[in-house]
């Protein structure tokens, strides 16, 4: 991709909201400088990918970098800072500090909550996934073959953060030649266990992997990290260089030439559109087609957590007598179209709902596809009857929001949204209860203190 002249760094991404701005308008920054940080997420930084001049108010919700030049990046963290960190956190803390401040930490996920894990915490296990199975997203193993050395070195670095906790490396085929190559490379330096999973969405989801490995929520956090994260760890700890470049997939049905490309956060989306998108009326999605969010027009640049941009045609025509067509070119979960007689093919997908909203007919498809092993239709029925407590007992919290239930539902019920709403509602209620308990505790303590004081007075 050609170097852009201007970068538009969005202050929001999937998990982060960078509210703490660290630079002034008109200030010159070099690549690797902290532009802003997110105070709610362990002050995870928004790094300047290139040298340039900051414009804060130019575009709403963005930091704009102008006069971009690819000069030498900030190669190391200043001595003074280092000694300060060393005094505060000890030698072990330095590595974690580097990961956080050099932008490698944002590649880490808590397997159960999906949030950013505590950089100073110790996990019960680390899951390294080499796969990314959602349709149209960058596949991790593409990067893997080229940079095997970096991967194994990154794994060793990861191991040095842990005490005895295992690292699980998730691969599609653990007896392949390539897997053996990795095994030979890391022998002795890191205790890596390999885990084989099918190449089927969403088996690469960290929560599904953690549950497969029998890791329990109560046993502490589980870190999940993909290939690019391990490579970032290697870069941050071996070279002490900022990790700002991401590999992003450009895919989908509205793209003339699907590709993977290296971009930095803030890369103008218009440029990507000009080069790859040939349909003006297409929908631009940040992420894959099953879990991604629609990229609003106001967002001008690629955000710091973007893993792929998917272009999808909007539904326009109304099909005549669609329900009795043979359907030679349609993918269907049930074999209700002639296409089930065909071998593998790719369908021209669009954003149509492809049917009318109907009541649930209990076809059980959603349960069959659910990778979390819950019963979406049951929770849907509970929610329909306002039975939140029952929905909680049906373990709506295990939902990983993969979107498969919404996809297969022949009644076109948006189960994914309903489950997410229910999860949010339950979490909110729990938080309220917790707050209430805290308040009561506080009040009790105050009462007790007042009582003691009055007792002392009487004495």
């Amino acid at each position, binding site marked *: 991709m050609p170097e852009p002249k201007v970068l538009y760094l969005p202050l929001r991404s999937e998990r982060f909201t960078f509210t703490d701005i660290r630079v002034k308008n008109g200030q010159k920054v070099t690549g690797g400088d902290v532009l802003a940080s997110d105070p709610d997420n362990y002050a995870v930084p928004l790094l300047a990918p290139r040298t340039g001049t900051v414009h804060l108010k130019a575009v709403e919700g963005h930091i704009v970098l102008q006069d971009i030049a690819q000069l030498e990046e900030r190669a190391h963290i200043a001595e003074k800072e280092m000694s300060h960190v060393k005094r505060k956190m000890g030698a072990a803390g330095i590595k974690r500090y580097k990961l956080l401040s050099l932008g490698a930490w944002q590649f880490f996920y808590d397997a159960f909550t999906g949030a950013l894990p505590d950089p100073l915490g110790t996990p019960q296990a680390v899951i390294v996934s080499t796969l990314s199975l959602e349709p149209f997203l960058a596949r991790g193993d593409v990067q893997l073959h080229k940079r095997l050395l970096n991967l194994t070195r990154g794994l060793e670095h990861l191991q040095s953060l842990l005490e005895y906790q295992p690292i699980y490396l998730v691969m599609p085929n653990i007896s392949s030649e390539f897997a053996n190559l990795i095994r030979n490379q890391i022998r002795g330096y890191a205790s890596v266990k390999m885990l084989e999973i099918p190449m089927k969405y969403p088996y690469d989801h960290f929560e599904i992997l953690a549950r497969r490995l029998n890791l329990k929520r109560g046993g502490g956090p589980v870190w999940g990290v993909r290939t690019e994260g391990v490579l970032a760890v290697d870069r941050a700890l071996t070279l002490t260089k900022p990790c700002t470049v991401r590999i992003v997939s450009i895919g989908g049905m509205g793209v003339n030439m699907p590709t993977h490309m290296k971009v930095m956060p803030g890369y103008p989306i218009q440029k990507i559109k000009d080069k790859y998108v040939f349909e003006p009326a297409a929908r631009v999605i940040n992420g894959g087609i099953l879990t991604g969010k629609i990229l609003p027009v106001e967002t001008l640049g690629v955000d710091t957590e973007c893993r792929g941009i998917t272009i999808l045609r*909007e539904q326009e025509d109304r099909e*005549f007598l669609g*329900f009795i067509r043979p359907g030679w070119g349609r993918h269907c979960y049930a074999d209700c*179209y002639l296409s089930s007689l065909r071998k593998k093919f790719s369908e021209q*997908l669009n954003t*149509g709902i492809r049917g009318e909203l109907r009541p649930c007919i209990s*076809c059980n498809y959603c349960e069959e596809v659910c990778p979390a092993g819950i019963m979406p239709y049951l929770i849907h029925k509970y929610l329909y009857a306002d039975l939140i407590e029952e929905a909680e007992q049906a373990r709506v919290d295990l939902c990983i929001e993969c979107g498969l239930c*919404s996809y297969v539902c022949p*009644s076109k019920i948006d189960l994914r949204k309903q489950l997410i709403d229910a999860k949010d509602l339950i979490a909110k209620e729990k938080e309220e209860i917790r707050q209430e308990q805290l308040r009561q505790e506080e009040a009790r303590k105050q009462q007790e203190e007042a009582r003691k004081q009055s007792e002392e007075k009487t004495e």
Partner: protein
Amino acid sequence: MKWLLKIIDAVRPTFEEGGKLRLLNPVFGALEHFFFAPSARTIGAPHVRDPLDLKRVMSMVIISVVPCVLAAFYFFGLRFLAMIIVSYAAGLTVEAIFAMIRKEGINEGFFVTGILFPLIVPPNLPLWMLALGVAFGVFIGKELFGGTGRNIFNPALVGRCFLSLAYPKTMAASWVEPSHELIGGLLTWVTPSLDAVSGATPLALAKQGEMGSIAHMLLGSVSGSAGETSAILIILGGVFLLFTRVASWRTVVSMLGSFVILTGALIAGGAVVYPIPGLFGPVMWHLFAGGLLFGAFYMATDPVTGPTTNAGKWFYGIIIGSTTVLIRNFTGYVEGVTFAILLGNIVAPILDEIVIGIRLRRLKNEG
């Protein structure tokens, strides 16, 4: 087909809120969406959807009964066409009235009930009774419970059950002997019934000790409900349904399996120990007789009235299969499938409750 879409777009305001015919909006919507798929788009993740919708599911069922419908024409004459028309007209009226009251769209579910109902009643049934049965089934069996997706009983079977309880004599007199000519009944309005005895169904005859041949029952040249006589065609359509996964194979396998095993066990037990009174006919003969196959493939597999869970489906099939054996062999009724499936419908929610309870207990310690 642009012109049709233009007409639809042009007349739409008349049916919308504030238009003259707004009461008929559900009817208009049903017609519109029959011809043209809706233009709605997804608003969030997942951005793409499976092409399958309820219209497709229901049209799959209708396609799968086409062989039976053709057989009904062949064996029992063109009067069957009138039966289909009356069934749809009566049922759709009830359905449309309720859609207007509820201000919801007309559900596709009825199109299946409307075609299945004439297939499970005697071919010479008076048309007014057919209309009454279908209206009763849709009204009591479905609409009172809240419409498609919320009904407990299979509407077609409720209608049939009502007719056989309310008008047993007329029902029994409506059986006719199928046409035995090469061209079948295709040139006649209705194949003439010579006398009451010749129209009796194989099961009724067997209770009197007169066993029909299995070959005739396979082909369908026996007396019986309009669409239930030909075992081969039912199996053909049924396998198609299983293949498309619209019908659950678990229900079918467990129902037919338990039926065969229980009948076989009773016969074997009777042969070894002492003869069981009332028991008649070999296993294979029973399998092809009456409405068993049709009930297994088209009635018991209705996803709404059956259990949702896969484990529940196994027990559901077993309950229906064994109840059928008991009713057929040990009661005054010659045919038990209708009652057995309705009984299964009652039990289905309980089975689901049990299975879901067990699953939830297992889920409790997950994650």
